[in-house]
């Protein structure tokens, strides 16, 4: 084979790279590297002119390999591979050197250091690329079925979009009913339309859709495979009610003698029975037996529900079912957890009776809630005359969560409106900043200002029942510095609402690991790109939607659910997906059959072929991590695109003397 002819392109990225790296010098120096036929610098390599430059040079100078020194490969590797492919080159004969994220941006005041590092990284890429081999991406068929994890509004939206397009969806929900947090709310801001009125039709559609298999009271236990071909193991917890026979008539929970405090749906304000349906509009309509509280599971007696059930649907001995489903894509829409207000002891939640969380207030003001929609104090009858609403509880506070929970400003405004409407009480909103940023939100804020709600700008330091004066007697006193007036205030009120922040689910890191999605420093799932790819993840075929990706309100969750569905529908309609050919392969003629690699593989992708006494990689299962490649004592496993030769050459290249004018003067001879 003729000698390699490498083209090197060093990008200025406007001033992003050129401000810290001497780009022209790096390009001139790169020209002296072995096998470099042409080396250029360019203002913007990713622009069409930059890409056309590559295409032109490949044709004119007969380049065999291309190196672009610019940003992270996570940003533009695909762009440049495509440019190479357009002029007939194999896209894998391309290599990228990251001199922006890893050099100019982190060494802005060290021009020599940044330039030297850029030279080392370019040299590494040139040394590496000449060992690259042409690779053919694997094409795999996409199964048209999709798994949606989480039955909140984001998951519901994603499921309906895909199912309406005629493709099958499995929806897995941990709780006995879908609906998520939105089902607990009373009104939605800023339009004040009833949450249930807009949600329940969608829930019903999910429950009755011919293309949706609804698996409530279920959890995903294991995920295997890869994009297009995931196999998922789901544990369907025993409801102990036969879904085929149950009509959802309700006589079982009416007659059940055990009352249990409902800490999930009623936020600890109301009660349910030991056999229960979380709320009247629940989908599916079947109840579930709570074995921890049911008398039968404690003493073996009672069986009241069984006696009253007309269709004999009660199954005390039912067991969990394990289902194995095959899907092509996965949407994670696992939602959020509300900040636990007990973590801020000075706000007194749990100690001072009439301090409520936002979720408790949602249930209090909900017509289907424990007080039939009456806004009353914890005693169940007293109507408050003054109410304080505290914003940013557990959000924007380095002690708890540094992020803004995005919804609390608007839900606090909504609470203020509802309290006024239902009780005529005087309402004080204590805020740090008002952030009503979406459509119609600012207008809603102005409406509240005109309605006469008092806004006090300042972070509340304490809520106490220790009175300093006769008018504070028997009241809750909210202590806060009014930063607009510049004075300390003590505001006596009857009721306090804490606008609790949104946090990631307590098990988000385990769930993320199960699906190959990582969590950011706040604990929410990380998207592939924060701006340009907000619903995809680093694992192909796994998408995220709704509040599991970051705190957001209903419209944004719906938008993300639909966006994830659109991404999935495009792969389904294409029918195939292209996978990176980064796979391990074994040279069977040299394999000694020691089987060390067999146990290394986390995906069981390596089989031992008994009759030949060699190991063999199943390319469909291999994910290309390279653990077996490093383990093989005979070094006969090749990790495509990360071969021993390529990495050794990269090390040699990265260690060249970057301070020498021409470090290859001798070598070239």
């Amino acid at each position: 084979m003729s000698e390699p002819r490498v083209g090197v392109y060093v990008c200025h990225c406007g001033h992003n790279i050129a401000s810290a790296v001497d780009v022209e010098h790096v390009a001139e120096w790169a020209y002296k590297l072995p096998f470099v036929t042409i080396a250029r610098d360019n203002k913007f390599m990713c622009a069409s002119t930059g890409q056309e430059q590559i295409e032109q040079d490949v044709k004119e100078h007969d380049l065999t390999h291309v190196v672009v020194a610019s940003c992270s490969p996570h940003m533009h590797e695909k762009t440049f591979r495509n440019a190479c492919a357009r002029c007939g080159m194999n896209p894998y004969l391309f290599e990228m050197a990251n001199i922006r994220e890893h050099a100019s941006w982190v060494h802005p005041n060290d021009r020599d250091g940044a330039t030297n590092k850029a030279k080392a990284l370019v040299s590494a890429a040139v040394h590496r690329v000449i060992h690259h081999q042409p690779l053919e991406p694997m094409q795999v068929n996409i199964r048209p079925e999709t798994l949606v994890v989480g039955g909140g509004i984001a998951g519901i939206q994603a499921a309906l979009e895909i199912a309406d397009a005629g493709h099958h969806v499995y929806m897995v929900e941990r709780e006995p009913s879908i609906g998520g947090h939105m089902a607990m709310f009373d009104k939605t801001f800023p339009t004040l339309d009833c949450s249930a009125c807009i949600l329940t039709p969608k829930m019903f559609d999910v429950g009755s859709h011919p293309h949706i298999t609804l698996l409530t009271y279920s959890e995903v236990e294991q995920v295997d495979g890869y994009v297009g071909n995931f196999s998922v193991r789901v544990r369907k917890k025993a409801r102990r009610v036969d879904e085929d026979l149950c009509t959802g008539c309700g006589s079982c929970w009416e007659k059940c003698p055990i009352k249990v405090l409902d800490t999930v749906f009623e936020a600890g304000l109301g009660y349910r029975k030991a056999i229960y349906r979380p709320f009247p509009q629940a989908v599916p309509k079947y109840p579930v037996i709570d074995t921890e509280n049911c008398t039968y599971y404690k003493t073996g007696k009672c069986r009241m529900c069984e006696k009253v059930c007309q269709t004999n649907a009660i199954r005390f001995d039912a067991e969990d079912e394990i289902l194995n489903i095959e899907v092509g894509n996965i949407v994670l829409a696992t939602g959020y957890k509300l900040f636990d207000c007990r973590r801020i002891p000075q706000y007194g939640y749990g100690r001072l009776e009439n301090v409520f969380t936002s979720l408790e207030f949602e249930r209090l003001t909900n017509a289907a809630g424990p007080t039939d929609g009456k806004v009353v104090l914890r005693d169940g009858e007293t109507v408050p005359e003054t109410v304080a609403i505290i914003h940013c509880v557990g959000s924007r506070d380095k002690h708890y969560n540094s992020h803004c929970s995005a919804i609390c400003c608007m839900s606090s405004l909504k609470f203020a409106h509802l309290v006024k409407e239902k009780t005529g009480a005087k309402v004080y909103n204590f805020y740090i900043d008002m952030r009503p940023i979406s459509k119609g939100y600012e207008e809603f804020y102005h409406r509240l200002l005109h309605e006469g709600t008092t806004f006090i700008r300042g972070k509340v330091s304490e809520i106490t029942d220790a009175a300093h004066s006769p008018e504070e007697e028997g009241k809750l006193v909210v202590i806060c510095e009014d930063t607009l007036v510049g004075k300390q205030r003590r505001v006596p009120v009857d009721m306090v609402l804490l606008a609790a922040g949104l946090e990631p689910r307590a098990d988000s890191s385990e769930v993320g690991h199960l699906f190959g999605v990582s969590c950011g420093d706040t604990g929410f799932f990380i998207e592939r790109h924060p701006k340009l790819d907000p619903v995809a993840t680093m694992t192909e075929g796994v998408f995220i939607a709704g509040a599991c990706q970051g705190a957001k309100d209903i419209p944004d969750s719906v938008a993300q659910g639909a966006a994830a569905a659109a991404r999935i529908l495009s792969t389904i309609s294409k029918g195939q997906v292209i996978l990176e050919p980064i796979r391990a392969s074994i040279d069977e003629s040299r394999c000694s059959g020691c089987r060390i690699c067999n146990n290394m593989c986390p995906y069981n992708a390596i089989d031992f072929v008994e009759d030949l006494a060699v190991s063999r990689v199943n390319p469909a299962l291999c994910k290309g991590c390279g653990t077996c490649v490093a383990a093989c004592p005979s070094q006969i496993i090749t990790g495509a695109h990360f071969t021993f030769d390529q990495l050794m050459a990269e090390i040699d290249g990265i260690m060249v003397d970057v301070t020498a004018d021409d470090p290859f003067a001798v070598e070239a001879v």
Partner: protein
Amino acid sequence: MIENGTFKPVIVGFLCNWCSYRAADLAGTSRMGYPSTLRDIRIMCTGRLDPTFVLRALQKGADGVLIMGCHPGQCHYQAGNYKAIRRFALLKRTLRQLGLEEERVQLHWASAAEGVQFAETVARMTEQIKALGPLDWSHNWPNEDPYAVEEATE
């Protein structure tokens, strides 16, 4: 490496594609400065790290090697970083016998969100190696390429 008359360590980094390389990217996009001593190589997983890579880097003149991967339990490939831990322990034993100081070869974790931790790790290791001085193994190592022999027999 001698830059402007003073010793400046060269540290070769092996970063896994999913966590630590992304942490380095994040350090970049968030402009978290750190010393320009690290020259990094991307591998798909720390499980791919053949211990000979580390030896090669040292042989070629690196003053230190920094291996970074996903946190234990967070590996993109489930358990590659656990394999890396075991190989690292064996490698360190060999390096100790060769008289190499502990700080020269280090294994750390950084998740894709830990740009700050990434920058701090590089800064800390740079200081440690500055204190140790140059390694200069390239002049104490046999001149022949140890792998050249293997290739010649084929």
